[in-house]
């Protein structure tokens, strides 16, 4: 029976394709959240596989917080242009008008306004009944229990006590559209960080070069290395960015994303470094440090 066996990556790929097709078949207006990160790259790649030889049957939606690394924005625009993907970019203009900034208002207020509220605005405006996200269960403790189909009420809120049981690969996609119910869908729920990297390596998937080591101007704040990506970064008295050989394990808003010192400049070297390191992926994100269980609170509020 050896010839009828699939490697774990091929099984995970098949599972994700199954989920993508199921949603497209059962929902009227799906959209794929596109964060430009490596998980998004994998998601788009899987979507192309799922609907080949047809085009992507949905648009990509990027919630632009205005503080993304400029390398991410240029990658996004070129990637979508070259592949003919329909890209929607949304920014919470209310927050921009109010001048909400991570430097002035702190990471919580800023993230809530730009990410959570911005996302809700975009989903509401587009009247999407399903939104794909690239979250994985191995990322964070509360996500270990997240469903593949995450049911959201008319206020897009997630109720941890009222999620539908999921059996086999049979997903319940019934929603009440009059009540503006929707779902968030996580096709790569069962992938780990290592799976994602292995898959990128195996499938030669394009990723933002920030994942690879390079000389970048950085300052160190509270033990975290911040890449000074533009002149909005308020340097403190006597602070001077210095060129450091760094890379990023996760990508987000540049003031909130810590760099790691590294010389890993190829994919195998990244994976090698990841395997030998002893800190987990999300630690680079300032957002999780607030308090125990904070991601769960954000999810209840409608954060992806």
């Amino acid at each position, binding site marked *: 029976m050896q010839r009828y066996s*699939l490697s*774990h*990556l091929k099984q995970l790929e*098949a599972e994700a394709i199954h989920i993508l097709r199921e949603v497209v078949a059962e929902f009227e207006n799906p959209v794929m959240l596109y964060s430009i990160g490596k998980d998004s790259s994998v998601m788009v790649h899987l979507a192309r596989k799922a609907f080949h*030889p047809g*085009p992507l049957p949905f648009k990509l939606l990027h919630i632009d917080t205005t503080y993304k690394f400029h390398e991410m924005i240029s990658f996004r625009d070129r990637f979508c242009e070259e592949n003919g993907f329909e890209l929607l970019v949304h920014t919470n203009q209310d927050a921009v008008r109010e001048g909400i900034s991570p430097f002035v208002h702190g990471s919580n207020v800023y993230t809530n306004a730009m990410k959570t509220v911005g996302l809700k605005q975009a989903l509401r405006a587009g009247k999407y009944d399903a939104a794909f996200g690239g979250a994985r269960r191995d990322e964070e403790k509360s996500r270990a229990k997240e469903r593949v189909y995450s049911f959201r009420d008319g206020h897009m809120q997630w109720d941890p006590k009222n999620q539908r049981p*999921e059996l*086999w690969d049979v997903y319940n996609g019934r929603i009440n559209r009059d009540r503006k119910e929707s779902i968030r869908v996580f096709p790569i729920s069962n992938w780990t960080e290592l799976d994602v990297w292995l898959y990128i390596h195996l499938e030669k998937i394009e990723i933002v070069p920030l994942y690879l080591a390079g000389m970048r101007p950085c300052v160190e704040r509270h033990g975290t290395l911040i890449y000074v990506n533009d002149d909005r970064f308020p340097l403190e008295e006597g602070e001077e960015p210095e060129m450091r050989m760094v890379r990023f394990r996760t990508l987000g808003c540049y003031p909130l994303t810590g760099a790691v010192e590294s010389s890993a400049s190829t994919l195998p070297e990244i994976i090698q470094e990841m*395997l030998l390191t002893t800190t987990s992926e999300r630690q680079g994100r300032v957002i999780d440090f607030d308090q125990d269980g904070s991601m769960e609170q954000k999810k209840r509020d409608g954060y992806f």
Partner: protein
Amino acid sequence: MEINERDREFISTDILGYLKQHEEKDLLRFITCGSVDDGKSTLIGRLLFDSKLIYEDQLAAVQAASTRHGTVGDQTDLALVTDGLRAEREQGITIDVAYRFFSTNSRKFIIADTPGHEQYTRNMATGASTADLAVILIDARHGILPQTKRHSFIASLLGIKHVLVAINKMDLVDWGEERYEEIRKEYTDFATRLEVTDVHFIPLSALLGDNVVHRSENMPWYEGPSVLHFLESVHIASDRNFIDFRFPVQHVVRPHLNFRGYQGTIAGGVVKIGDEVMVLPSGKRSNIERIVTFDGDLTHAFPPQAVTLTLTDEIDISRGDIIVKPNNTPRVEKAFEAMVVWMHDTPLREGRDYLLKSGTQLVTAEASLLRYRFDVNTLHKTEPIDVDGRPGLQLNEVGRLMFETTRPMAFDPYARNKTTGGFIVIDKLSNVTVGAGMILDRKADASQRSREEQARRLALLQASTGKVTAEMRAERFGHQPATVWLTGLPRAGKSTVAHALEQRLWDKGVATHVLDGVNLRLALSKDLGFTADERSEAGRRASEVARLFNGAGMVTIAAFASPYAADRDAARQTIGDDRFVEVFLDASVEVCEARDAELFPEGDGLYAKARRGEVKSFTGVSAPYERPESPALTINTEATSVDAAVETIVALLVERGVVGG
């Protein structure tokens, strides 16, 4: 991702070789069952911890949380590693399924971690639905508890073929081999009642790490593998069905006029280019033209590959259809039997309509008959609860049901194929998933349904009675009611004798009427055929009609072949022993056949047709006639005239006091 020193070396010196090895890994999904007290969370925490899968920052977070919520004093509470939601953490228990991941050099593992407290059947069924294997934890001090049986039963119900019985806390029973053997024997005896084919036992201490990742030094008598080693080596590849080709169509892709592809995940069997296929439910046939994937066309495909099929013919196929091979098809019917796990606070109620989703099919179905509830604690069939006058199932209960769908559904037994044999139950109003079902390899019997349901309804009815009594009727008519039941082969003379008897009694002033089998067949029972079941039903209706006539005070003359003793006994039951007069008209098959040929010289008599096979199941020729053992009268119609037969019967009725002399 067990990073031991050897792997570190491997990763450091030959990352490409290491990646190559990991690209080839396979996948094992397993479920862990047991209560918090059994040390389940500790076992998982230990597996992750000892295989270096807890990162330092996560460990720091767990250590911090241990001092707040922990239950093991100053030690790091490994159970907290697998803990998740805040509300649950505050209650000190996990209340849902959590998925954990780890991998070794040969396998990736997905753990479905489910809680072991009382309200858990729904969660465990959910976790078990995707699992290849179940790890069932037993506290060595307590041995096999009701929950152990419950866990094992649900694993078996959801079709898990491999069970690892992890006998934990061996440190608390002095690492005793005898205790281990005792539990092992007891479980082995119990497991014969389940459909689990492969059971293994490992003694361990999750707290101390013995036999979790590394072999225990405290139990030299145990020579088997550690838990991790077992999980790495257990053979599961042959569990999939590579025989019955099943392709539930998920989505039709039509990027341009020259391409029409059917997308889906192969749920069973192997398909090759050129294979002849059939589309259900339409039954239309075609051949596989291409097996398309993004990475190029395939020559063949197998489960669980997600592919796009194109066919050589343009046929109308849409989502919900299933592509199969013509010589190996699932059943396509409007009723089936299933075991159902109820998953919602609102109970299932017999008679209600639900939506069922099986693979890509979505159908409306009535939960038409709840046969019994299965008590997961005692493993016995029990009476279901009452929900507004009908039987029902509550949250976490398991029951055997018949569903009747509004349109035909294609399905296999769950034991044969989990995709085409499993379904979720969705509430039509709230859209919530309220249950999960596993289709049984039993044909649904809708007639049984109506009878059982009737019996249940009848039990609730009180027969109405009037003021006109049987005595009053007997007095007015001048005779007692009775049923003369004439039985015998076709052409034994039943109708002839019946009508002569009717005339004779009528002349005597008796209120009487002939019930003729053929006449009833042409009217009241025209919906019935001639199978044994249908003959019985025809007999039941005939005896009920006879009983009604008797109730009206009349003498019924019933002329029915009624070849089965059981059916005649049933008629006697229905009509009442004192009113039932069984008369056997005896004639040999040869004589009856000759009479038939005389009546139909052209050769189109019933016997002639039966001999030619044009009439199936014909009594006396191709179906049996059971001679009555002790009828009230036996009349040999080969040697008796019609008049003489009638007089014999009248004499008996006089003797019995039915009619006057």
